[in-house]
């Protein structure tokens, strides 16, 4: 299978701190890949490098849309990365809290639509059709994440688990081929986590989207991932199938050891 994302030798320094140290990672088409590691391991920083929020100190990030040519994406602006087809959620939820649930998803359509100022002022046929399409597309996504009954609520008034799902819907609205989820189950109860598990599997199966996720919930990770990458202190310490990772002594010491402390 072809890789949709290939990261080689990625390094990110903050002053004297090396948050990500020479990491190699790849996601193949149709895969669900998990990135795990103790807090402060550099997982979110890696996400920020991939999605253009940080410019990596060294290394290459190449994205390959299915059926398209490979594109180097490090150094691009976040919106350019999203346009290529990578979309993300945030560890600390970043919704547009004074916008409605539907409007949040509608923002995700921005980069796939074209109406300009003149169109907005004149409200010509193209603009009106496009607006209707944006609404229809966004509403369908809300149904997919089961938020349709909150459609006109303000995002800030949603319960926590629903906010996380809304972030996923918003990311999906950009029509990505790779979805990056930063701790999607954080703060969810077991029931919500189970629903999330199903949602992620459905996204892969029905929408043909590959997924890279950071997660601490080991049950979820072991359950849905095809492969797992483990990071500690910015370094990549292991990679393998859930079964291999479960038995890896280095991982048990680094990750599970920390969990026992925490």
């Amino acid at each position, binding site marked *: 299978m072809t890789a949709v994302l290939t990261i080689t030798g990625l390094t990110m320094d903050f002053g004297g701190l090396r948050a990500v140290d020479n990491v190699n990672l790849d996601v193949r088409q149709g895969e669900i890949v998990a990135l795990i590691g103790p807090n402060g391991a550099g997982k979110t920083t890696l996400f920020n490098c991939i*999605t*253009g*929020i940080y410019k990596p100190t060294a290394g290459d990030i190449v994205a390959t849309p299915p059926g398209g040519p490979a594109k180097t994406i490090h150094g691009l*602006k*976040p*919106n350019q990365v*999203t*346009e290529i087809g990578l*979309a*993300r959620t*945030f560890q600390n939820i*970043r*919704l*547009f*809290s*004074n*916008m*409605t649930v*539907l*409007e949040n998803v*509608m*923002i*995700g*359509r*921005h*980069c*796939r*639509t074209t*109406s*300009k*100022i003149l*169109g*907005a*002022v004149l*409200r010509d046929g193209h*603009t009106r059709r*496009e*607006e*209707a399409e*944006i*609404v*229809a597309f966004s*509403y*369908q996504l809300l149904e997919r994440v089961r938020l349709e009954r909150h*459609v*006109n609520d*303000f995002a*800030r*008034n949603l319960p926590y688990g629903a906010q996380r799902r809304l972030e996923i819907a*918003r*990311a999906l*609205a*950009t029509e990505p081929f790779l979805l990056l989820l930063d701790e999607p189950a954080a703060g969810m109860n077991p029931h919500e986590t189970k629903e999330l598990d199903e949602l992620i599997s459905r996204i892969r199966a029905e929408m043909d989207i590959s997924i890279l996720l950071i997660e601490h919930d080991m049950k979820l990770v072991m359950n849905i991932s095809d492969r797992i990458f483990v990071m500690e202190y910015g370094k990549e310490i292991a990679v393998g199938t859930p079964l291999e990772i479960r038995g890896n002594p280095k991982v048990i010491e680094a990750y599970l050891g920390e969990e026992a402390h925490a």
Partner: protein
Amino acid sequence: MRKFFTLAEMKKSLLMAVWFIFLTFPIMVVRVNPIYKVVEWRWQNLVLVGVSAFFLSFLWRYFLAYKKPAPAKSPLETSARKGKLSELQRHPAARRAGIFLAATLAVAFPYIFSTYQVNIMTTALIYVVLGLGLNIVVGLAGLLDLGYVAFYAVGAYSYALLNFHFGLSFWVCLPIGAAMAALFGIILGFPVLRLRGDYLAIVTLGFGEIIRLVLENWNEFSKGPSGIAGIPRPGIVGVEMSLNTSSIFLYFLMIGLALLTILVVTRLRNSRIGRAWIALREDEIACQAMGVDKTKTKLTAFALGATWAGMGGVIFAAKTTFINPASFTFLESAIILSIVVLGGMGSIIGVIASAFILILLPEYLRAFSEYRMLIFGAVLVIMMVFRPQGLISNVRQTYRFKGLQEENKEGDIK
């Protein structure tokens, strides 16, 4: 009503009084008489300050307590509890009646009132346009711009200078002034793209001052502080107008421009671009990560906001027939910003209402000449304390989902 006259509250007010006595001691109590070389101690002032500070602070906090009725409330409830004004605004019949009334009044106004009144109203309408323009930048895109008056100046000087040197008419200069202001909006936009909040405010403030100082000091270009006189009023080719008709014509022109502004700003706000502005204001990083180009979006906000200031400037120049840099000081920016803030950030009706209040109030307060600015300031302060969300509450009109007609039809076919 909860109990308010408690000992704790008294103590707070007492503390406030002592603090005020301390603060005002050097100016209110001590007076050095340089002629007789003696120090006067005006103790009666100390008592006056203390007593009035005590009662005023008491009153102040009494109203503050009155303002927040019950503390704990779910967010859903508070968002449902909207102001009476916006409630009325939503009622279709009341809305239609209101619009009809306003239209009749607007048309009849110049024939009922004097030229002087018409001129004041034209000025107020210019500020409506300026407020709505700045509302794009501050209210929608969330970019605090303290140098907005610079674009107003660009528009005014575009007309004045083009007319002076090349004899271009008002109608030619109106779009040129708008375009020049938009260009300056982009020029200012580029360097401040990375800045936010306080930093943005300071740089835009500087920009406004730079434009004014250039106009003041570059005599060969702008005739410096003496300004440009004899700017023609707008006319229609072949029609001679008296001063009075000319004022009325300008008034209706301004009504037209204000209506156009309202239409354009409303449509922009409910468009793909308007949504991007609001999202950018809400969370810049998330907005970019969702595929919105920050640079482009901010620049369009600056440029579009400036466009309206430019048009306002051209009309201002035509109205006064004389402009000089003194008309474009920071105070103007501050007033326009007050219009936006007082109206309720992002609310179009709110901005219109507050433009009328802020421009007409000082005009009709002229009777209290020396106190008018004081009253003006007090109104602003009180307003911001008791109604920080602005005249029209609620963050903004939201996009409401009304169902998917086309979608269902498609579903039937499948």
